[in-house]
């Protein structure tokens, strides 16, 4: 028999659990639809049966699903979840609803690293070959992170210093990207612009595996500190008095966020709004309890990118529609409507 205390507590978490289940189902359906939609249209049933038992299906369908569309659809799911969790945690530790990996200049740094590789073939790792762009993007994300950490360390990891440093780096790397675009040839410029808009076209099983492994390693590291992260909402002083090492926690989260963001953007380019909008919706639905806020942000991020991928393919049936444009086109009106409705206390 359940105690009255447990029943009160269950009343609080019941609805949050329900949201998780509903959005998990929505993500699964969007995932199947994302695979089904394309230049050669498939039914959701064909997709499902091909995934479950590939040997029973048409070989052509198998190739379309397993070799072409499944890695891209999975990449949308993983990258969406990674960027949304990264955004959710940046917003949490900086206590700023406008914060995202972009705010900290991490994505802009990745963009600069990629552009550097495209224009000059300059990489931080010699002889990296075709993956030079991704490696450069990853490493420059970490350079951006290191600068933030260094300055934050000097100034006791305060929220304000992190935001100011991040925004400064954002402008710096954007200016450097513009400089590279100015110096680039037409062909290089096209590559840079395409990379900056983001795309799942270069996704493969190996990129899916890398992003997935990073995601399942990093997210539990954040999840174990769920209560401490939630307690940051009480303010730094209160959190410290509860025995939480706020500076250490903040630095740990920044490291995790950087790895998540860098691993996502280095393969698919900079995709806007996924780090900003899904965490906001998750916060409206579940509140600040990070045990639900983190997974729901991840699910909403996956859903957001899958829908953007589907939308992109519908709009541009034969070609490749940059995913960054689709996310911004969906994200901006949605985000503005959230602000206007002002349903959340976090605005």
């Amino acid at each position, binding site marked *: 028999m359940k*105690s009255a*205390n447990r029943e009160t507590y269950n009343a609080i978490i019941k609805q949050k659990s329900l949201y998780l289940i509903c959005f998990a189902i929505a993500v699964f359906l969007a995932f199947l639809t994302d695979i089904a939609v394309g230049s050669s249209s498939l039914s959701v049933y064909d997709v499902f049966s091909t995934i479950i038992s590939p040997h029973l299906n048409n070989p052509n369908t198998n190739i379309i699903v397993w070799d072409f569309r499944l890695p891209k659809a999975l990449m949308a799911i993983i990258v969406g979840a990674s960027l949304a969790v990264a955004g959710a945690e940046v917003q949490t530790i900086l206590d700023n609803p406008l914060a995202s990996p972009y705010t900290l200049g991490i994505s802009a740094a990745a963009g600069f690293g990629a552009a550097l590789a495209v224009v000059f073939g300059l990489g931080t790792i010699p002889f990296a070959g075709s993956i030079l762009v991704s490696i450069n993007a990853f490493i420059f994300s970490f350079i951006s992170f290191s600068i933030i950490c260094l300055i934050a360390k000097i100034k006791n990891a305060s929220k304000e210093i992190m935001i100011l440093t991040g925004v400064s780096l954002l402008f710096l790397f954007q200016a450097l990207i513009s400089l590279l675009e100015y110096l680039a040839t037409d062909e290089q410029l096209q590559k840079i612009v395409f990379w900056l808009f983001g795309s799942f076209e270069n996704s493969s099983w190996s990129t899916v595996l890398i992003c997935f492994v990073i995601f399942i390693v990093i997210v539990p590291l954040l999840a174990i500190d*769920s*209560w401490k992260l939630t307690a940051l909402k009480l303010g730094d002083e209160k959190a410290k008095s*509860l025995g939480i090492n706020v500076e250490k926690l903040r630095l740990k989260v920044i490291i995790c966020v950087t790895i998540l963001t860098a691993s996502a953007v280095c393969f698919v380019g900079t995709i806007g709004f996924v780090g900003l909008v899904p965490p906001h919706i998750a916060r409206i639905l579940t509140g600040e309890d990070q045990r639900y806020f983190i997974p729901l942000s991840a699910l909403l991020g996956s859903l957001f990118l899958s829908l953007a991928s589907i939308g992109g393919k519908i709009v541009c049936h034969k070609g490749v529609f940059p995913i960054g444009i689709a996310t911004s086109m969906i994200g901006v009106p949605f985000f503005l409507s959230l602000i206007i409705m002002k349903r959340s206390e976090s605005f």
Partner: protein
Amino acid sequence: MKLEINNFSFSYNSSLIFNEMNFKIESKITALIGPNAAGKSTLLKCIAGVLDPKGTIIFDGKNVKSFEKKDLIRLRSYLPQESKITGSLTVFEILLLGMANSLFWKVNEADLEAVSNVLKYLGIEDLALRSINELSGGQKQMVFIAQSLIRDPKLLLMDEPTNGLDLKYQLELFELIQKITLEKGMTTIIALHDLNLAARFADNIVVMSKGEIYASGSPSSVLTQKTIESVYGINARISIDEDGVPWIKPINSIKNKGSVAKNLF
């Protein structure tokens, strides 16, 4: 509980807040009073472990550095000047957060019971499922006090707990603090600007001025015209009411010692 502060020094960057401070507290409710920038809040934060001063804190004859971290967290509880929540949480969740450092992913029965007991003790069970953002200022403060009590602390540190509350809530809050302190056998230290509340509810008053302890003792021995004039730079009339409690009526600021005016303009 007996609290001893020995050779306490603290600086913000290069600005010295207090130097080689020493005092002892044994009474139930101690009011920490003094003008702005006297160092009251900083002192509370140092005792609460939010800031790391030089010197030693002794709880019941034992140096805090010799306590295990989990015991030290249970021992003292701190209510900041502006308790706030940015975001949406229910009252039940906020009370759980009072144990944030030791909670597991699945909240165990003992922790749920601790929350339930405090809610019942303060008579606010009906607020359990309400969002903190829906509550009035007085109710919010009650929730934060409940959160402070969740670990059954021996030392309760409160910084301006009546800020923003109307007169009725101020009195109700202090009556509650008095009741809790007595019933739970705690030591409570409250930083306050309201001298009359301090005089009425505190057993002991510590007067701080410019980072030093100016005076310490019972309300009637500390709240004298000389103290008020020297520390606050004002003329005040002090009378003793029928309960033997000093009553301070501010008259005017002393212009030539008008540190407040200088600070303001």
